[in-house]
């Protein structure tokens, strides 16, 4: 394989560092190991004809798909065409070299969290949550904060050691910060669900800038959640943690009390 040379250097580097784990190369899997089979679908802004079909195939090749097959192509009207393509992706990754950024803390259950807050803080933890700026979709913040919670995981309102204030949708960052000051909040929870042209990034940056300007950034634990949010992205944006899908109230609350304890360890 053409990557051999690269592999050698990697191996040399790995040998120099005895703690490096063994290599673990993977390719996409269809029905045979290392066949690299993947599927994708996309639209081209041109009508469907032999030329656009060939264009779709070339595009797949450029993406690293060998032997691409346009298995389905359809004209969508108004000068757009739709393609479903299968191919063999030539790229591979070494999982042993990857580092995943995730908040490191033990996820406790509700009783455990309540007990820990009582022990460490000796008062209720104040959490203010909101969907900020343009976002009108409260499903995420509600799932974490409201009494009912989501999927059988009760929300923060049901935690007797937490005072949970859910400000709802389309809250201006300024209003959120004012409320944080008023309530002496320990934790800010923001949700960004709907995004168009990455507006959620602007919204989130605005809030962290504002907290910085108010001198509050170090005093509060700043957490963001949403389907497009990863912990890594959250850290990049200056947040303490980010939670994606399949996160529940206990994940967020466990992080919050862990982080609070860490900051107040001294």
């Amino acid at each position, binding site marked *: 394989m053409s990557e051999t040379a690269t592999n050698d250097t990697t191996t040399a580097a790995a040998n120099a560092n005895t703690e490096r784990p063994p290599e673990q190369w993977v390719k996409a899997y269809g029905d045979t190991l290392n066949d690299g089979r993947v599927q994708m679908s996309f639209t081209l802004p041109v009508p469907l004809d032999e030329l656009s079909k060939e264009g779709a195939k070339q595009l797949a090749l450029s993406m690293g798909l060998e032997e691409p097959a346009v298995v389905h192509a359809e004209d969508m009207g*108004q000068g*757009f065409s739709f393609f479903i393509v299968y191919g063999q992706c030539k790229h591979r990754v070494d999982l042993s070299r990857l580092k995943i950024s995730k908040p490191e803390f033990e996820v406790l259950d509700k009783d455990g969290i309540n007990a820990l807050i009582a022990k460490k803080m000796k008062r209720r933890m104040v959490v203010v949550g909101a969907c900020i700026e343009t976002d*009108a979709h409260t499903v995420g913040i509600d799932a974490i904060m409201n009494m009912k919670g989501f999927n059988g995981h009760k929300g923060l309102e049901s935690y007797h050691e937490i005072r949970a204030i859910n400000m709802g949708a*389309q809250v201006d960052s300024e209003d959120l910060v004012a409320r944080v000051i008023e309530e002496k909040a320990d934790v800010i929870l923001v949700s960004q669900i709907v995004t*168009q042209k990455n507006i959620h990034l602007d919204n989130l940056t605005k809030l962290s800038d504002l907290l910085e300007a108010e001198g509050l950034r170090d005093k509060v634990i700043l957490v963001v959640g949403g389907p497009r949010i990863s912990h890594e992205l959250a850290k990049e944006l200056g947040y303490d943690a980010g939670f994606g899908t399949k996160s529940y109230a206990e994940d967020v609350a466990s992080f919050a009390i862990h982080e609070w304890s860490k900051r107040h360890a001294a």
Partner: protein
Amino acid sequence: MSHLQLDQAQIDRARESARRIARQVFEEMSQFTTTTVERATVRLLGVDGVDENQVPLPNRLVSHLQAQGLLQHGAAPVLAAAMQATGQTAQQIAQAVAAGTLTLTKPHDTTAAVAAAEALARSMCERIASQRSYRDEQIKAVGEGPTPWLYLIVATGNIYEDVAQARAAAEQGADIIAVIRSTGQSLLDYVPYGATTEGFGGTYATQENFRLMRAALDEVGAKVKRYIRLTNYCSGLCMPEIAAMGAMERLDMMLNDSMYGIIFRDINMKRTFIDQFFSRMVNAYAGIIINTGEDNYLTTADAFEAAHTVLASQLINEQFAYISGLKPEQMGLGHAFEIHPELENGFLWELAHAQLVRQVFPDAALKYMPPTKHMTGNIFKGQVQDTLFNIVSTVTQQNIHLLGMMTEAIHTPFIQDRFLAIQNAKYVFGTMKDLHSEIEFKSGGLIETRAQTVLAETESILAEIEGMGLPAAISKGTFAEISRTPTGGKGLDGVITKAADYYNPFPQLMLSGDQ
């Protein structure tokens, strides 16, 4: 489909309760007007445009009337008197007020002012009536799609891009195009002006944007031989003004709920109840189908446990709609397919609810909303969830079918997401076309029992709401588990107590029923 056995007397009792609930609110609210009702009124009398700071002239004019202590008499007679006195148009009066060269005063001859306002209003009513008959003629001439009508959303933020996407959607089979608004708009206490090319999560509702989209849909409708209906959002702080603009520009549907703004946008209750009455009256007169927002309850409350709150709210929405002159076929009462996919027999409960709603509102243009809350990044499962939703819709004969997108949980739809959604719905609607008339519900079976249970719960919750009054019920978090108080929320400062001589020409003209 063979009907569910439901107790008609129970339905009647629930409906009677809802009638008294709505009537009580209406009577309490008829002593008030609002700034946006008056702005809608001056718009209907011919005021449009913005000043040098992009502030709409209707806002400038109504603020002026408020500052002069005249608004409680109604904007229409004051404006009409000024037009008579100066020989200028409504627009010229508004411009002069905005420029600071004219101060409006109380009319000397109230009778003449009222007569002049009525004459002006009458000519606007004629214009709206002619738009309404033009729609009827167009539908006759080019035809329309069979129900369930396929309802698709465009939301690029740029009206010209929206037009391109809407044309493509119509060619692919959409019957209804809804232009989602920029997310901040419901909380703006004015309506932006002109064509707009930037928005967040949607495109601003402006009269010019309405006009551009209407023209595009007429054109593509003629091409595909189907009248394409246009929908926008008559909600938020400017419900009456949006209704006025939609009536003038021949929109066909408006999201227009009597309680949505209170619950989901924290708009003041009084403000909303007053505004919804006027906006629905305009919609009724313009032949517009309203869409109510009960589906939203199920995004916060549990769809299985809170099913009766949806039906209760639909019955209340229906009664508010009657007060504003809407006919059953103009009532797009909303509900949704939002039961958790993991719930055993969830499909049966969805079927039970959709059929229950169909039978309680046999003549309404029911609006059925797709799964959103339990959609995930697994687009393949999402396509299956949407397929099940499509099946319930055709089997229970819903009218307005908002297409589910398999990428619901990911982003605002790509062009191919819409394409695949239409393909899915058309396949289901075609292959199951007459299934509804071929199958029947087992008497005393799970589905029928479920529907009966929800109906009984609906009757009981309506009796409870009637006992305490609707504002108190909303304060208690009856709908969507969200609590709002009568003095809380945005827009209360725009509520004005009418003077004894308050006059507005439109209710009398639009509610007279001589359309």
